[in-house]
């Protein structure tokens, strides 16, 4: 596919008049001009922009007021989806709200469980011009975009040359011609990014830890830096958690809490025991108050996939279960909001940053050691534990042994993610990849078991209510059977997954990371 060329006009004077004169000289024919209000949408973590696409709701200022949802490739300018929205309807917020149209499914796959949030609103004058060949065929489209974010100064005028497939030469020649007559500067960003910049919009959220710790720093500095970063993630996701904007805010909030607890746990020789114990207790409490809502979110998120395991005509039988889950989620979220408004949480969010930023009068014995050495020691311990416990598991082992191993593996993963930048990044990436394969298997084994147990509990709750149809219970039984199958498959796969993780090549990776002699591994 051909790529579009995007420029901003940097000439003095009226860019519209200037471009009109140039267009006339280049033989371009104006075919449409529209004034429109445009609302650009993306997920809070900017996943549409990250995949090189923009999503907007465009509403003409005059004439028919029907809005169109446009999903467009930033790279080629190709339309990926264009669908008219029902007049007066709310804009789509979740993937399930997207109109049933070509392209919607791909868009829904990208959005997943995230909400679509307005990123920028602009008023635009969009003029489309075309270059025709001798047959009267369009060989290049040119879009002139004069946009003004609400309440701000106009953005630079943008010119986009949209090549028509098979006519790349014509687009190149026109680009050169335009560039020779108007001062155009290549613009690497789509308009939504210009508008976001003009509006001073915050950066997109990210659940990935992007830490670049100083390898020469002492352990106290390294631990502090990680904890400060994790606190920022909790802060970023707090409002979305409170308002339940989408389930990922709470997910990312909880991951940051769990990582914080893990970093505190691993800081046994870095932090003073009293402080460490106190904050571990506080963050355990914070994790605990978020658990019921997250559990309810997970059940709701998994429900469509579970329904899909049933024959289509039986899927509707699970509707009472969905209603029950929605009700539980709502009630648990109300409790969470109340807990987040408690004095205990208020003092946590007030005192935790003070602790992180203030001097640590008392510390653990290794606080002044080099951070990378302390991190490597912790990593060695966690890795050896996973290897030791994993090797003990055989076909006859109890499920608890695998669940415990999952916790050990998670601890190791957090260490790699939080302190990996103190170590060899290439080896860290290989170690994480190997560990992920094992974690996926252990996760599938435990999650399917937990879900099956939860479903039994939900069945009891529905029965206690006294209005449940037998068809619903049968459908739930079908789902439990499916979960049992998946769990059994995961259990069978464990030996192979663990052997991959415990392969000499991977052991060498860990040895390089923790820098211990060949003969002392687990």
């Amino acid at each position, binding site marked *: 596919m051909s790529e579009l060329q995007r420029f901003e006009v940097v000439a003095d004077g009226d860019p519209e008049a200037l471009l009109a004169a140039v267009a006339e000289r280049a033989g371009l024919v104006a075919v449409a001009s529209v004034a429109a209000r445009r609302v650009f949408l993306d997920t809070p973590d900017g996943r549409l922009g990250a995949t090189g696409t923009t999503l907007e709701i465009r509403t003409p200022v005059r004439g028919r007021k029907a809005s169109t949802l446009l999903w467009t490739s930033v790279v080629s300018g190709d*339309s990926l989806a264009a*669908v008219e929205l029902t007049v007066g309807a709310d804009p789509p917020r979740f993937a399930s709200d997207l109109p049933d149209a070509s392209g919607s499914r791909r868009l829904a796959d990208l959005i997943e469980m995230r909400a679509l949030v307005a990123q920028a609103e602009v008023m635009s004058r969009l003029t489309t011009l075309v270059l025709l060949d001798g*047959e009267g065929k*369009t060989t290049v489209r040119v879009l002139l975009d004069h946009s003004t974010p609400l309440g701000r100064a106009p953005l630079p005028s943008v010119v986009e040359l949209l090549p028509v*497939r*098979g*006519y790349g030469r014509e687009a190149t020649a026109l680009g050169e011609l335009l560039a020779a007559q108007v001062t155009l500067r290549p613009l690497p960003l789509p308009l939504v990014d210009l508008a976001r910049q003009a509006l001073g919009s915050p950066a997109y959220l990210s659940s990935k830890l992007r830490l670049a710790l100083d390898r020469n720093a002492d352990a106290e500095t390294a631990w502090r830096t990680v904890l400060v970063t994790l606190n920022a993630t909790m802060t970023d996701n707090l409002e979305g958690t409170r308002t339940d904007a989408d389930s990922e805010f709470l997910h990312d909030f909880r991951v940051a809490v769990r990582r914080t607890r893990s970093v505190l746990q691993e800081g046994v020789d870095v932090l003073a025991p009293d402080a460490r114990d106190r904050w571990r207790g506080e963050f355990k409490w914070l994790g605990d108050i978020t658990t019921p809502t997250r559990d309810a979110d997970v059940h709701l998120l998994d429900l469509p996939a579970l329904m899909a395991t049933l024959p289509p005509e039986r899927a509707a039988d699970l509707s009472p279960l969905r209603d029950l889950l929605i009700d539980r989620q709502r009630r648990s979220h109300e409790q969470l909001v109340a807990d987040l408004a408690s004095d205990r949480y208020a003092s946590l969010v007030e005192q935790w940053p003070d602790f992180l930023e203030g001097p640590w009068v008392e510390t653990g014995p290794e606080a002044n050691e080099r951070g990378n050495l302390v991190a490597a020691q912790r990593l060695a311990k966690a890795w050896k534990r996973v290897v030791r416990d994993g090797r003990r598991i055989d076909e006859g082992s109890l499920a608890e042994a695998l669940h415990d191993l999952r916790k050990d593996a998670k601890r190791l993963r957090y260490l790699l993610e939080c302190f990996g930048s103190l170590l060899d990044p290439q080896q860290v990436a290989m170690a994480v990849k190997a560990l992920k394969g094992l974690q996926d298997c252990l996760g599938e084994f435990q999650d399917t078991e937990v879900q099956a147990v939860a479903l039994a509990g939900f069945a009891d709750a529905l029965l206690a209510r006294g209005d449940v149809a037998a068809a619903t219970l049968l459908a739930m039984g079908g789902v439990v059977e499916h979960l049992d199958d998946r769990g059994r498959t995961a259990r069978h796969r464990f030996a192979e997954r663990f052997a991959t993780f415990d392969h000499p090549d991977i052991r060498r990776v860990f040895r390089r990371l923790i820098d211990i002699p060949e003969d002392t591994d687990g």
Partner: protein
Amino acid sequence: MKILATYNIKGGVGKTAAAVNLAHRAASEGHRVLVWDLDPQGAATFYFRVKPKVKGGGEALVQGRRELDRAIKGTDFDNLDLVPADFSYRNLDLLLDEAKKPLGRLGKLLAPLRGDYDYVFLDCPPSISLASEAVFRASDALIVPVVPTTLSARTFDQLEAFVADNPDVVKKLRILGFFSMVDARKRLHREQVEDLRSKWPELLSTQVPSATDVERMGVHRGPVAAFAPSSRAAKAFAALWTEITARL
């Protein structure tokens, strides 16, 4: 990606009009659509204002020296691309005959485009030949315009007989016939429609009228809906497309 061929053994029954208008309708619904004009006369190519020329001709495509992807031209309509006709397609039978596994050749050329398009329309020349058999093998369905006249109906019979006699060639192919160029003022058309419907109840119910707007496609050089969106013909093609997608 569904491959649909507009096909009839007989010429002048509205194959190209069906290919162009149905493809335009599918694209306007947001589907990614490709039309491959296999007719050396190049009427579909003309309607889309594209030059009827493929670099290296049909030979380069059939022999695999040129990928189909590189022959594609964007039309003036969103989501709608075209592989233009080339005069060398008049020798498509000979070219296929010289190729290895000729029946699978078109499907092989289209396979790399699987992720790029939702629908491919093959606009076929009127004949029944090796090239037609290759089209049958590549396609998911044949969209067959039937003019309600004795001769046109006879060719539909011939097609059905061929399909029944050659299951190894047609494999999964579906035959979607519809009445084309229907002139409701003609008694013969009305009677034929009635007779043929009782003979072939599986025919699609939408009838495309014999309309000036379809003839004007050559003047406007575009699909009917692009210059006469409210016309009877545009509405008929829209309804026909809805019916076809429901059958696929």
